[in-house]
Protein backbone atom coordinates (compact mmCIF):
# COMPACT_ATOMS: atom_id res chain seq x y z
CA UNK A 1 0.00 0.00 0.00
CA UNK A 2 2.80 2.37 0.94
CA UNK A 3 4.57 1.60 -2.33
CA UNK A 4 1.43 2.44 -4.29
CA UNK A 5 1.08 5.75 -2.47
CA UNK A 6 4.66 6.59 -3.32
CA UNK A 7 3.88 6.48 -7.05
CA UNK A 8 1.70 9.63 -7.19
CA UNK A 9 4.06 11.27 -4.70
CA UNK A 10 7.08 10.51 -6.88
CA UNK A 11 5.31 11.71 -10.03
CA UNK A 12 4.20 14.97 -8.40
CA UNK A 13 7.70 15.48 -6.99
CA UNK A 14 9.29 14.92 -10.39
CA UNK A 15 6.93 17.46 -11.93
CA UNK A 16 7.73 19.93 -9.19
CA UNK A 17 11.40 19.30 -9.98
CA UNK A 18 10.74 20.36 -13.58
CA UNK A 19 9.28 23.66 -12.39
CA UNK A 20 12.26 24.18 -10.09
CA UNK A 21 14.60 23.41 -12.98
CA UNK A 22 12.88 26.04 -15.10
CA UNK A 23 13.41 28.52 -12.27
CA UNK A 24 17.13 27.66 -12.24
CA UNK A 25 17.30 28.08 -15.98
CA UNK A 26 15.53 31.42 -16.07
CA UNK A 27 17.50 32.81 -13.11
CA UNK A 28 20.80 31.36 -14.39
CA UNK A 29 21.31 29.61 -11.08
CA UNK A 30 23.04 26.33 -10.58
CA UNK A 31 20.65 23.69 -9.16
CA UNK A 32 23.07 23.07 -6.29
CA UNK A 33 22.82 26.69 -5.19
CA UNK A 34 19.22 26.04 -4.15
CA UNK A 35 20.48 23.76 -1.42
CA UNK A 36 23.71 25.50 -0.57
CA UNK A 37 22.22 28.77 0.56
CA UNK A 38 19.42 27.01 2.35
CA UNK A 39 16.70 29.35 1.26
CA UNK A 40 13.90 29.38 -1.25
CA UNK A 41 13.17 31.72 -2.81
CA UNK A 42 16.02 34.04 -1.99
CA UNK A 43 15.05 37.22 -3.76
CA UNK A 44 18.52 37.55 -5.20
CA UNK A 45 19.01 39.73 -8.18
CA UNK A 46 19.05 38.09 -11.60
CA UNK A 47 22.38 36.48 -12.27
CA UNK A 48 23.55 36.60 -8.67
CA UNK A 49 24.71 33.22 -7.53
CA UNK A 50 24.15 31.72 -4.13
CA UNK A 51 27.19 30.45 -2.35
CA UNK A 52 29.66 32.38 -4.51
CA UNK A 53 33.08 31.78 -3.10
CA UNK A 54 31.93 28.40 -1.89
CA UNK A 55 32.21 26.73 -5.22
CA UNK A 56 28.72 27.30 -6.60
CA UNK A 57 28.69 28.05 -10.28
CA UNK A 58 26.17 29.72 -12.45
CA UNK A 59 24.06 27.75 -14.83
CA UNK A 60 25.60 29.04 -17.99
CA UNK A 61 23.43 28.67 -21.03
CA UNK A 62 25.23 28.98 -24.29
CA UNK A 63 23.85 29.85 -27.62
CA UNK A 64 20.91 31.71 -26.16
CA UNK A 65 17.76 30.15 -24.86
Amino acid at each position, binding site marked *: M*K*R*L*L*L*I*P*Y*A*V*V*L*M*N*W*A*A*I*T*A*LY*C*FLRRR*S*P*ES*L*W*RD*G*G*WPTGRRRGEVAGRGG*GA*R*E*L*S*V*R*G*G*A
Partner: protein
Amino acid sequence: MIAIEAAFWLSLLLVAYVYAGYPLLLAVWSRWRPRPVERGGAEPTVSLVMAVRNERERLERKLENCLALDYPPEKLQIVVSLDGSCDGTAGVAARYAARGVEVVRSERHRGKAAALNSGVAAARGEIVLFCDARQRLDPGAVRELVACFTDPSVGAASGELVLLDDSGGVAAGGVGLYWRYEKVVRAMESRVHSAVGATGALYAIRRELWAPLPEDTLLDDVLVPMRIVLAGRRTVFEPAARAYDREAPPELEFARKVRTLAGNFQLLGLLPGLLSPRSNPVFVQFVSHKLGRLAVPHLLIVLLVSNLFLLEGVYLVFLAGQCAWYLLASAGAIAARGGERPAAEAPARILQRRQRPT
Protein backbone atom coordinates in the same frame (compact mmCIF):
# COMPACT_ATOMS: atom_id res chain seq x y z
CA MET B 1 -15.65 29.20 -22.10
CA ILE B 2 -14.63 27.53 -25.36
CA ALA B 3 -11.07 28.74 -24.82
CA ILE B 4 -11.04 27.19 -21.34
CA GLU B 5 -12.41 23.91 -22.67
CA ALA B 6 -9.80 23.94 -25.43
CA ALA B 7 -7.04 24.56 -22.88
CA PHE B 8 -8.35 21.69 -20.75
CA TRP B 9 -8.55 19.15 -23.54
CA LEU B 10 -5.28 20.19 -25.14
CA SER B 11 -3.45 19.89 -21.83
CA LEU B 12 -5.08 16.53 -21.12
CA LEU B 13 -4.17 15.18 -24.56
CA LEU B 14 -0.56 16.36 -24.33
CA VAL B 15 -0.04 14.92 -20.84
CA ALA B 16 -1.61 11.65 -21.96
CA TYR B 17 0.63 11.64 -25.03
CA VAL B 18 3.84 12.22 -23.06
CA TYR B 19 3.21 9.49 -20.49
CA ALA B 20 1.13 6.97 -22.45
CA GLY B 21 0.75 7.90 -26.12
CA TYR B 22 4.46 8.23 -26.77
CA PRO B 23 5.36 4.86 -25.21
CA LEU B 24 2.54 3.28 -27.23
CA LEU B 25 3.84 4.95 -30.38
CA LEU B 26 7.30 3.59 -29.60
CA ALA B 27 5.92 0.12 -28.98
CA VAL B 28 4.34 0.07 -32.44
CA TRP B 29 7.32 1.79 -34.10
CA SER B 30 9.89 -0.53 -32.56
CA ARG B 31 7.97 -3.59 -33.79
CA TRP B 32 7.22 -2.15 -37.20
CA ARG B 33 10.74 -0.94 -38.02
CA PRO B 34 13.21 -2.27 -35.50
CA ARG B 35 16.91 -1.62 -35.99
CA PRO B 36 18.64 -4.45 -34.16
CA VAL B 37 22.20 -3.93 -32.99
CA GLU B 38 24.85 -6.21 -34.46
CA ARG B 39 26.70 -7.59 -31.45
CA GLY B 40 30.03 -9.37 -31.50
CA GLY B 41 32.64 -10.82 -29.21
CA ALA B 42 35.55 -8.56 -30.12
CA GLU B 43 37.65 -7.19 -27.26
CA PRO B 44 38.75 -3.68 -28.17
CA THR B 45 40.88 -1.70 -25.75
CA VAL B 46 38.73 0.11 -23.21
CA SER B 47 39.48 3.10 -20.99
CA LEU B 48 37.26 3.28 -17.95
CA VAL B 49 37.13 6.94 -16.92
CA MET B 50 35.72 7.97 -13.57
CA ALA B 51 35.45 11.58 -12.38
CA VAL B 52 35.75 11.68 -8.61
CA ARG B 53 35.65 14.47 -6.08
CA ASN B 54 35.29 13.57 -2.41
CA GLU B 55 34.61 9.83 -2.44
CA ARG B 56 37.08 8.47 0.09
CA GLU B 57 34.53 6.04 1.50
CA ARG B 58 33.35 4.71 -1.84
CA LEU B 59 36.42 4.79 -4.04
CA GLU B 60 38.19 1.74 -2.64
CA ARG B 61 35.10 -0.42 -3.08
CA LYS B 62 34.58 0.97 -6.56
CA LEU B 63 38.15 0.37 -7.68
CA GLU B 64 38.06 -3.19 -6.35
CA ASN B 65 34.84 -3.61 -8.34
CA CYS B 66 36.52 -2.24 -11.50
CA LEU B 67 39.60 -4.43 -11.10
CA ALA B 68 37.37 -7.50 -10.82
CA LEU B 69 35.50 -6.82 -14.07
CA ASP B 70 35.33 -9.65 -16.56
CA TYR B 71 37.55 -8.09 -19.22
CA PRO B 72 41.21 -8.73 -20.14
CA PRO B 73 43.23 -6.53 -17.76
CA GLU B 74 45.75 -5.69 -20.47
CA LYS B 75 42.91 -4.21 -22.53
CA LEU B 76 41.29 -2.29 -19.69
CA GLN B 77 42.79 1.03 -18.63
CA ILE B 78 41.30 2.54 -15.48
CA VAL B 79 41.59 6.30 -15.16
CA VAL B 80 40.50 8.15 -12.02
CA SER B 81 40.20 11.88 -12.60
CA LEU B 82 40.33 13.70 -9.29
CA ASP B 83 38.48 16.97 -9.18
CA GLY B 84 39.97 18.98 -6.34
CA SER B 85 39.50 16.20 -3.82
CA CYS B 86 40.12 17.32 -0.26
CA ASP B 87 38.99 14.40 1.91
CA GLY B 88 41.75 11.87 1.32
CA THR B 89 40.32 10.48 -1.90
CA ALA B 90 43.63 11.17 -3.64
CA GLY B 91 45.41 8.94 -1.12
CA VAL B 92 42.99 6.08 -1.78
CA ALA B 93 43.47 6.46 -5.55
CA ALA B 94 47.24 6.63 -5.21
CA ARG B 95 47.29 3.28 -3.39
CA TYR B 96 45.85 1.66 -6.51
CA ALA B 97 48.50 3.07 -8.82
CA ALA B 98 50.57 -0.08 -8.20
CA ARG B 99 47.66 -2.14 -9.54
CA GLY B 100 47.53 -0.20 -12.78
CA VAL B 101 45.02 2.50 -11.92
CA GLU B 102 46.02 5.81 -13.48
CA VAL B 103 45.26 8.97 -11.58
CA VAL B 104 44.77 12.40 -13.13
CA ARG B 105 44.69 15.19 -10.57
CA SER B 106 43.28 18.67 -10.50
CA GLU B 107 44.09 20.57 -7.32
CA ARG B 108 41.17 22.89 -7.95
CA HIS B 109 37.50 21.85 -8.00
CA ARG B 110 36.42 22.49 -11.57
CA GLY B 111 33.35 20.29 -11.87
CA LYS B 112 32.61 16.90 -13.33
CA ALA B 113 32.78 17.96 -16.97
CA ALA B 114 36.31 19.35 -16.58
CA ALA B 115 37.35 16.21 -14.72
CA LEU B 116 35.99 14.07 -17.55
CA ASN B 117 37.89 16.17 -20.09
CA SER B 118 41.12 15.52 -18.18
CA GLY B 119 40.31 11.83 -17.78
CA VAL B 120 39.55 11.28 -21.46
CA ALA B 121 42.72 13.18 -22.42
CA ALA B 122 44.62 10.43 -20.57
CA ALA B 123 42.58 7.63 -22.15
CA ARG B 124 44.20 5.38 -24.75
CA GLY B 125 41.45 2.83 -25.41
CA GLU B 126 39.37 2.61 -28.55
CA ILE B 127 36.30 2.72 -26.36
CA VAL B 128 35.90 5.11 -23.45
CA LEU B 129 33.59 3.91 -20.71
CA PHE B 130 32.25 6.35 -18.14
CA CYS B 131 31.01 5.50 -14.69
CA ASP B 132 30.56 7.08 -11.27
CA ALA B 133 32.07 6.13 -7.94
CA ARG B 134 28.75 5.37 -6.28
CA GLN B 135 27.33 2.53 -8.33
CA ARG B 136 28.56 -1.06 -8.40
CA LEU B 137 29.13 -2.52 -11.85
CA ASP B 138 28.09 -6.01 -12.83
CA PRO B 139 31.21 -8.08 -13.64
CA GLY B 140 30.10 -8.55 -17.24
CA ALA B 141 29.07 -4.92 -17.76
CA VAL B 142 32.08 -3.85 -19.84
CA ARG B 143 31.90 -6.91 -22.08
CA GLU B 144 28.18 -6.47 -22.70
CA LEU B 145 28.54 -2.78 -23.46
CA VAL B 146 31.55 -3.18 -25.72
CA ALA B 147 29.78 -5.90 -27.75
CA CYS B 148 27.45 -3.20 -29.13
CA PHE B 149 30.37 -1.47 -30.86
CA THR B 150 30.72 -4.32 -33.34
CA ASP B 151 27.92 -2.50 -35.14
CA PRO B 152 29.61 0.37 -36.99
CA SER B 153 26.51 2.55 -36.73
CA VAL B 154 26.75 2.56 -32.95
CA GLY B 155 28.65 5.51 -31.51
CA ALA B 156 27.56 5.23 -27.89
CA ALA B 157 26.05 2.55 -25.70
CA SER B 158 24.30 3.00 -22.40
CA GLY B 159 24.07 0.40 -19.69
CA GLU B 160 21.15 -0.13 -17.35
CA LEU B 161 21.04 1.31 -13.86
CA VAL B 162 19.20 -1.08 -11.56
CA LEU B 163 17.81 0.51 -8.41
CA LEU B 164 17.75 -1.75 -5.38
CA ASP B 165 15.64 -1.32 -2.27
CA ASP B 166 16.81 -1.79 1.32
CA SER B 167 16.37 -5.56 1.10
CA GLY B 168 18.61 -5.77 -1.97
CA GLY B 169 15.74 -6.54 -4.32
CA VAL B 170 14.84 -4.49 -7.38
CA ALA B 171 13.01 -1.37 -6.19
CA ALA B 172 9.32 -1.63 -7.07
CA GLY B 173 7.69 1.48 -5.68
CA GLY B 174 7.80 5.24 -6.14
CA VAL B 175 11.04 6.34 -7.75
CA GLY B 176 11.95 2.72 -8.52
CA LEU B 177 8.79 2.25 -10.59
CA TYR B 178 9.29 5.61 -12.29
CA TRP B 179 12.83 4.55 -13.22
CA ARG B 180 11.65 1.20 -14.59
CA TYR B 181 9.12 2.99 -16.77
CA GLU B 182 11.90 5.28 -17.97
CA LYS B 183 14.07 2.30 -18.91
CA VAL B 184 11.27 0.66 -20.91
CA VAL B 185 10.94 3.88 -22.91
CA ARG B 186 14.71 4.07 -23.46
CA ALA B 187 14.87 0.48 -24.61
CA MET B 188 12.16 1.07 -27.21
CA GLU B 189 13.82 4.29 -28.36
CA SER B 190 17.04 2.35 -28.78
CA ARG B 191 15.32 -0.28 -30.92
CA VAL B 192 13.95 2.44 -33.21
CA HIS B 193 17.22 4.40 -33.51
CA SER B 194 18.73 5.90 -30.38
CA ALA B 195 17.95 6.44 -26.75
CA VAL B 196 17.67 10.12 -25.88
CA GLY B 197 20.59 10.13 -23.48
CA ALA B 198 22.51 7.55 -21.51
CA THR B 199 22.84 6.38 -17.94
CA GLY B 200 25.57 8.39 -16.23
CA ALA B 201 26.41 5.40 -14.06
CA LEU B 202 27.53 3.37 -17.07
CA TYR B 203 27.92 4.37 -20.68
CA ALA B 204 30.56 4.07 -23.35
CA ILE B 205 31.52 5.81 -26.56
CA ARG B 206 34.02 5.42 -29.36
CA ARG B 207 36.96 7.61 -28.33
CA GLU B 208 37.22 9.08 -31.83
CA LEU B 209 33.77 10.66 -31.30
CA TRP B 210 34.71 12.44 -28.08
CA ALA B 211 34.92 16.21 -28.00
CA PRO B 212 35.77 18.08 -24.80
CA LEU B 213 32.78 19.23 -22.76
CA PRO B 214 32.10 22.82 -21.75
CA GLU B 215 33.19 22.98 -18.11
CA ASP B 216 29.76 23.99 -16.86
CA THR B 217 27.98 21.03 -18.46
CA LEU B 218 25.33 19.64 -16.14
CA LEU B 219 24.47 16.50 -18.07
CA ASP B 220 27.45 14.84 -19.69
CA ASP B 221 25.40 11.67 -20.07
CA VAL B 222 22.94 13.42 -22.36
CA LEU B 223 25.22 15.91 -24.08
CA VAL B 224 27.80 13.31 -25.13
CA PRO B 225 25.30 10.80 -26.60
CA MET B 226 23.25 13.51 -28.30
CA ARG B 227 26.34 14.97 -29.93
CA ILE B 228 27.01 11.50 -31.28
CA VAL B 229 23.45 11.16 -32.55
CA LEU B 230 23.70 14.54 -34.29
CA ALA B 231 26.93 13.28 -35.87
CA GLY B 232 24.97 10.45 -37.47
CA ARG B 233 25.71 7.53 -35.14
CA ARG B 234 23.39 5.68 -32.80
CA THR B 235 23.20 5.67 -29.02
CA VAL B 236 21.88 2.29 -28.00
CA PHE B 237 20.64 0.94 -24.70
CA GLU B 238 22.08 -2.38 -23.54
CA PRO B 239 20.13 -3.74 -20.56
CA ALA B 240 22.55 -6.64 -20.07
CA ALA B 241 25.25 -4.17 -19.02
CA ARG B 242 24.22 -3.34 -15.49
CA ALA B 243 25.17 -0.98 -12.72
CA TYR B 244 23.51 -1.19 -9.31
CA ASP B 245 22.53 1.61 -6.97
CA ARG B 246 20.35 2.01 -3.91
CA GLU B 247 16.96 3.61 -4.36
CA ALA B 248 17.23 7.14 -3.00
CA PRO B 249 14.53 8.71 -0.86
CA PRO B 250 12.17 10.85 -2.96
CA GLU B 251 13.68 14.09 -1.58
CA LEU B 252 17.16 13.15 -2.72
CA GLU B 253 15.81 11.96 -6.03
CA PHE B 254 14.11 15.33 -6.30
CA ALA B 255 17.48 17.09 -6.02
CA ARG B 256 18.97 14.90 -8.74
CA LYS B 257 15.95 15.43 -10.92
CA VAL B 258 16.19 19.22 -10.66
CA ARG B 259 19.77 18.99 -11.82
CA THR B 260 18.83 16.65 -14.67
CA LEU B 261 15.96 18.79 -15.87
CA ALA B 262 17.94 22.03 -15.58
CA GLY B 263 20.57 20.24 -17.64
CA ASN B 264 17.96 19.57 -20.31
CA PHE B 265 17.30 23.29 -20.58
CA GLN B 266 21.03 23.89 -20.80
CA LEU B 267 21.27 21.23 -23.49
CA LEU B 268 18.96 23.20 -25.77
CA GLY B 269 21.46 26.07 -25.68
CA LEU B 270 24.45 23.81 -26.20
CA LEU B 271 22.93 21.77 -29.04
CA PRO B 272 20.29 23.87 -30.80
CA GLY B 273 20.38 21.35 -33.66
CA LEU B 274 18.30 19.06 -31.45
CA LEU B 275 15.30 21.27 -32.19
CA SER B 276 15.55 20.80 -35.93
CA PRO B 277 14.01 17.72 -37.55
CA ARG B 278 16.55 18.12 -40.37
CA SER B 279 19.62 17.74 -38.19
CA ASN B 280 18.23 15.60 -35.40
CA PRO B 281 17.48 12.01 -36.48
CA VAL B 282 15.62 11.43 -33.21
CA PHE B 283 13.64 14.66 -33.31
CA VAL B 284 10.29 13.02 -32.51
CA GLN B 285 11.82 11.12 -29.60
CA PHE B 286 13.61 14.18 -28.26
CA VAL B 287 10.52 16.39 -28.38
CA SER B 288 8.23 13.69 -26.98
CA HIS B 289 10.57 12.48 -24.26
CA LYS B 290 12.74 15.37 -23.14
CA LEU B 291 10.69 18.44 -24.02
CA GLY B 292 7.44 16.70 -23.16
CA ARG B 293 8.64 15.99 -19.62
CA LEU B 294 9.60 19.63 -19.20
CA ALA B 295 6.18 20.74 -20.37
CA VAL B 296 4.05 18.32 -18.35
CA PRO B 297 4.05 20.16 -15.00
CA HIS B 298 2.91 23.35 -16.67
CA LEU B 299 0.27 21.46 -18.58
CA LEU B 300 -0.93 19.92 -15.31
CA ILE B 301 -1.36 23.38 -13.83
CA VAL B 302 -3.39 24.45 -16.86
CA LEU B 303 -5.40 21.23 -16.54
CA LEU B 304 -6.26 21.87 -12.89
CA VAL B 305 -7.00 25.58 -13.24
CA SER B 306 -9.12 25.14 -16.37
CA ASN B 307 -11.00 22.30 -14.67
CA LEU B 308 -11.92 24.64 -11.80
CA PHE B 309 -13.81 26.77 -14.31
CA LEU B 310 -15.60 23.75 -15.78
CA LEU B 311 -17.74 22.38 -12.97
CA GLU B 312 -20.35 20.37 -14.79
CA GLY B 313 -20.92 16.99 -16.37
CA VAL B 314 -17.83 14.99 -17.23
CA TYR B 315 -15.55 17.75 -16.01
CA LEU B 316 -16.64 17.06 -12.43
CA VAL B 317 -15.36 13.51 -12.86
CA PHE B 318 -12.02 14.81 -14.09
CA LEU B 319 -11.82 17.27 -11.20
CA ALA B 320 -12.55 14.52 -8.70
CA GLY B 321 -9.85 12.42 -10.34
CA GLN B 322 -7.31 15.22 -10.11
CA CYS B 323 -8.17 15.91 -6.47
CA ALA B 324 -7.88 12.21 -5.67
CA TRP B 325 -4.48 12.07 -7.38
CA TYR B 326 -3.06 14.97 -5.38
CA LEU B 327 -4.55 13.60 -2.15
CA LEU B 328 -2.85 10.28 -2.85
CA ALA B 329 0.40 12.13 -3.53
CA SER B 330 0.05 13.91 -0.18
CA ALA B 331 -0.62 10.59 1.54
CA GLY B 332 2.47 9.24 -0.21
CA ALA B 333 4.49 12.14 1.16
CA ILE B 334 3.34 11.27 4.67
CA ALA B 335 3.99 7.57 4.12
CA ALA B 336 7.51 8.33 2.84
CA ARG B 337 8.30 9.97 6.17
CA GLY B 338 6.51 7.53 8.41
CA GLY B 339 3.81 10.14 8.97
CA GLU B 340 5.85 12.25 11.29
CA ARG B 341 5.11 15.57 9.59
CA PRO B 342 2.27 16.97 7.49
CA ALA B 343 2.70 16.49 3.76
CA ALA B 344 1.96 20.15 3.19
CA GLU B 345 5.36 20.94 4.63
CA ALA B 346 7.12 18.68 2.16
CA PRO B 347 7.87 21.17 -0.64
CA ALA B 348 9.16 23.77 1.81
CA ARG B 349 11.32 21.24 3.66
CA ILE B 350 12.68 19.79 0.47
CA LEU B 351 13.68 23.18 -0.85
CA GLN B 352 15.16 24.29 2.43
CA ARG B 353 17.48 21.34 2.84
CA ARG B 354 20.89 22.70 3.51
CA GLN B 355 22.94 19.71 2.58
CA ARG B 356 24.18 19.36 -0.92
CA PRO B 357 22.55 16.57 -2.92
CA THR B 358 24.90 13.82 -3.95
